[in-house]
């Protein structure tokens, strides 16, 4: 067993979660960020690991945001799952390491999350990478003619 998921013990969810309601303030913060995005184009990123969530708060927040049309998985230093919520411009970016443990969970309010863009540093090596594939002697995977 590499993680804790195999242990069949879970925190008991309090009977009346409405008494806490830590998810609602985040939804209001998202609303403010959306207003900023629409008015000025400025994107916002909220790190949910710094929020004092209780049992069930994260589930209530994600349920409140719903699921949208786009899903993507980035395979770099472990999987990162990105999906647009039912609110256009509001994205959930879930970073995991190679062992499947969560590194961070962000809500990005942007036209497109930053990590989905091709980064300028990677783009700078793009021509050389393609050239290497066009040259059969460079050891790179050869293109079929």
């Amino acid at each position, binding site marked *: 067993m590499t993680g804790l998921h195999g242990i069949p013990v879970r925190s008991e969810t309090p009977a009346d979660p409405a008494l806490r309601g830590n998810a609602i303030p985040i939804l209001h913060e998202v609303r403010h960020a959306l207003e900023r995005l629409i008015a000025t184009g400025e994107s916002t990123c909220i790190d949910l690991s710094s929020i004092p969530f*209780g049992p069930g708060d994260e589930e209530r927040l994600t349920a409140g945001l719903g699921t949208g049309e786009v899903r993507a998985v980035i395979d770099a230093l472990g999987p990162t799952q990105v999906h647009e919520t039912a609110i256009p411009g509001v994205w959930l970016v879930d*970073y995991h*390491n190679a062992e499947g443990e969560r590194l961070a969970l962000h809500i990005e309010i942007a036209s497109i999350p930053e990590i989905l863009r091709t*980064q300028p540093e990677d783009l700078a090596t793009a021509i050389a990478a393609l050239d290497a594939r066009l040259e059969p002697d460079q050891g790179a995977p050869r293109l079929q003619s």
Partner: protein
Amino acid sequence: MTKANKTLGESLREHGVSRRGFLKFCAATASMMALPPSMVPAIAAALEKARRPSVIWLSFQECTGCTESLTRSHSPTVEDLILDVISLDYHHTLQAASGDAAEAAREQAMKENHGSYLLIVDGSLPGPDSNPGYSTIAGISNYDLLMEAVEGAAAVVAVGTCAAFGGLPAANPNPTGAVSVMDLVKDKPVINVSGCPPVPMVITGVLAHYLTFGKLPELDQYHRPKAFFGQSIHDRCYRRPFYDKGLFAESFDDEGAKAGWCLYRLGCKGPSTYNACATMRWNSGTSWPVESGHPCLGCSEPRFWDAGSFYAPLSVPTGANGGTILAAGVTGAIVGGAVAALARKQVKAERADRQPVTVDELEQKL
């Protein structure tokens, strides 16, 4: 260029890590340092140029719980931390070398990185006036080992409540004359990462901060990094709204406990404890003591072990504990009840003196 001279950016690129992977690493690092995601570009720029610092880790009067905590750190993994982010040149428990070879590695790292290495200490140590025989490594007293290593260190990180404040070894009656690192080190920056043990991500967060910015983070009056110890457990507790509503669990199995109400009356030290448990949590973010139904013990605060019962509310004077009442009762039965009467009088007086903390007072205090 040797591995030690390469920047982190160069090292990661050589390992085939893409820019996206690097940004992800930076996002996790920002989260670990309790910095906002808007800092990720600045962290990326700094980490791109960062070089691996040499780290020497000394363990004194401790239980190895702090190292256990570090090796449970998942963000990034400790393997990443050791191999790519820091150069851990000496650590009794984690290094492969032992005996003379281990001590030679320590001496070599101290010589080669004189003036620039980071010294991490876990455990308290017998003070200069104590019997050095209480704790030695390779025949050298903890005190001599520390002072020798401090001389060439850029800074000292005291990991765990024992190193930071004396902890359990220094608890009454402190048989070994244990003292903390900051009791002895006055001419070098000391940063305390307290907790019994500290939250693993706080340990790595402090190292990541040093690596990223080349300096130590802002500290509170106990030399703890404000990013992690700047707010009380109580302020960041998800049960805080129950406190504000006056809804308290009165026992561990009553309806209030089952409903997840505030644990203040069961002895929770959250209002006077500063730590990051409420947001960073434990065991890969699974839970933390209050979430699992137990009051905070206040383990990241000085003298937490001697600060009265773990299960007495903060508003009860520390002298009025069950032990006093029970002991007084037993003795009183033998000597005709005089001492018991005295104890009862004392408890009565303490009850009269008891000053429950109101929300307003707490807000002012915090």
